[in-house]
């Protein structure tokens, strides 16, 4: 099966990679003591590794191409896995029940540490679903989404610090502040498209972070704000452990609420308008959709969820500083949306849980985890460019017509 040709190609690949990685993998200079360390062993690893991986790579690429060809030829009329799960009640109902039971008992079977990680994961699910409105549905590339997250977190932290306002009152305020900032950002960028929009939103995110970092009188600068109150239950304060479990359940409820709202939005008039805007701006305007209003609502609604997630984040960690809101956060959230599958709710949820929980559980590989993370991002995109669970386009099927042609050739 493996021909001589292929072995030759892989051999060339491995020689190429050995050349490529030679200075960085083999030589290490210690400029203080003026010693050079030659690590020839690494070269061997690279050579063998790339030789084997090149076979795997070619095989996977071939499989992908074959799959594409089959789909084009119409040989397989297979529904995507996600759709099949939803349509077949036999799988869907028990699956849902198992999942909800698991979600309910989670904090009792796992440790506090695990619950904390899960809360973080769920916060990112919320952020992902929010950004999904802007990027996935409306097709506006936003690289500064973390700004709204910061706005929400600081709203709660500052209100709590100065006026002692509690979590429940701050939650709608944070969401509202997020929406307000979304509109503030939305107005100047209405005319911009594509990557110009991306760079302005990136700038906006950095501006917010730098202001928080430098305006000491307002935001306490890089040292941040500590002792933010955890959520209370009708005035009852919990111990740290119970408060975490409580927050976990709050998060579950809020996620369900988010899914409900986003799902309803997606199929509403405004949701359809977003999708039309994403597909073709000119055609969308020609259909009589108000571009301004549509874009602004996308920004505002997307930012609302970020504001809310920010409040929860502040309540979870009880300490925030600008270092939590760097551009990397925006990038991670964007990765969640694209990796999961743009526009698909299930995809975004899976994407968030994978991207946030995986690095946590990869701690065993400690220093290699970000390396693996990077490889995973590339590999996922190369082998399934639509994301893990691609969005399903609404299509009308002419079933009657198909039957007719089959019967009367």
């Amino acid at each position: 099966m493996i021909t001589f040709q292929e072995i030759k190609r892989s051999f060339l690949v491995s020689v190429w990679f050995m050349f490529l990685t030679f200075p960085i993998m083999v030589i290490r200079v210690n400029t203080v003591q003026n010693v050079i360390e030659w690590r020839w062993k690494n070269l061997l690893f690279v050579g063998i590794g790339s030789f084997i991986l090149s076979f795997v790579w070619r095989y996977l690429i071939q499989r992908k191409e074959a799959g594409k060809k089959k789909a084009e030829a119409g040989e397989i009329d297979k529904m995507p896995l996600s759709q099949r799960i939803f349509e077949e009640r036999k799988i869907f109902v028990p699956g849902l029940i198992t999942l909800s039971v698991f979600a309910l008992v989670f904090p009792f079977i796992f440790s506090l540490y695990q619950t904390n990680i899960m809360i973080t994961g769920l916060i990112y699910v919320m952020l992902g679903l929010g950004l999904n409105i802007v990027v996935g549905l409306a097709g506006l590339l936003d690289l500064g989404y973390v700004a709204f997250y910061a706005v929400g977190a600081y709203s709660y932290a500052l209100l709590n610090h100065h006026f002692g306002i509690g979590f429940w009152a701050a939650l709608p305020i944070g969401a509202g502040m997020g929406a307000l900032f979304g509109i503030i950002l939305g107005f100047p960028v209405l005319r911009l498209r594509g990557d110009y929009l991306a760079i302005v939103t990136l700038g906006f995110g950095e501006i917010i972070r730098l202001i928080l970092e430098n305006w000491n009188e307002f935001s306490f600068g890089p040292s941040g704000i500590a002792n933010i109150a955890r959520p209370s239950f009708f005035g009852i304060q919990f111990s740290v452990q119970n408060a975490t479990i409580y927050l976990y359940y709050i998060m579950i409820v809020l996620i369900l609420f988010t899914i409900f709202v986003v799902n309803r939005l997606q199929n509403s008039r405004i949701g359809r308008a977003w999708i039309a805007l994403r597909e073709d701006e000119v055609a969308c305007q020609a259909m009589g959709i108000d571009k301004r209003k549509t874009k602004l609502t996308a920004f505002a609604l997307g930012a609302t969820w970020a504001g809310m997630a920010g409040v929860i984040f502040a309540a979870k960690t009880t300490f925030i500083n600008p270092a939590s809101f760097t551009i990397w956060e925006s990038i991670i959230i964007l990765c969640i949306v694209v990796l999961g599958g743009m526009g698909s709710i299930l995809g975004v949820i899976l994407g968030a849980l994978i991207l946030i929980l995986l690095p946590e559980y990869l701690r065993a590989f400690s220093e290699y985890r970000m390396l693996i993370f990077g490889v995973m991002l590339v590999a996922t995109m190369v082998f399934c460019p639509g994301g893990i669970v691609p969005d399903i386009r609404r299509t009308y099927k002419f079933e009657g017509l198909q039957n007719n042609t089959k019967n009367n050739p």
Partner: protein
Amino acid sequence: MEYFLELFLGGLTRGSIYALIALGYTMVYGIIELINFAHGEIYMIGAFTALIVASVLTMLGWNHIAILLIASIVAVIYSSAYGYTVEKLAYKPLRQAPRLSALISAIGMSLFLQNYVLLAQTSDFLPFPSLIPDFKFWEPYSHIISSSELVILITTAIVMILLTFLIKFTKIGKAMRATAQDRNMAMLVGVDVDRVISVTFLVGSATAALGGVLIASHIGQINFYIGFIAGIKAFVAAVLGGIGSIPGAVLGSLVLGWTESFFTGYVSSDYEDVFAFLFLVFILIFRPAGILGRSETEKV
């Protein structure tokens, strides 16, 4: 006045460095409409390769000019090789995919390269030998602009001229322009699009590597993270000038360099980046396609 001149030239140097990186961004964007997030990492790898080569040669006792030349050449070769490989691995399979997928792939590549250097080398800042000597004849003017700054300015100018020549007058340059205008049409008239894209990555990475060597020997230290910050700045500069346009990238970089330099000099260094970004937003509001970008009316 002297202070003004100092800031002006400081901004010019900064802008030139941004320009060397921004050129790669803008060329790649012009041809495949991809924000090549890993471009900053290519620049960082260029700087690291130069550092390694320079250190080895220093220990062998070579003289400075020879080291500078050899280190730059090796850095350029390696960066180009990395740029070429990254394109083949992470972007080529995604030609037909949605644009955002390619962007995420680029982000993944950027993360990978950062951590690859971090693990194979070190996470500490490494002192970079100052390879550019202090010229004797330049001494009377060195209080305004140092020799290393002078070398940076001259190198950048030469690279710009060569690049303009490449794009305007050579066959591959013509093919590049054709591919940038319409990839399918270029294919139809017999342009080997894959080759054009590879060449673009090679050239873009080579200029980034030059930028890496120059700035590293100017500032005097590097670590694995320098590429990310520089990449973002260069990207901003490219967009500011009008992404896809080569003179635009240079102009955008210079404007960004001056903005930062003057603002730091006259107002405050805390809000340097805030001001740079506000300026960017301000320009893009009035010229939504960048300073030199043409705002094309979209055909339906």
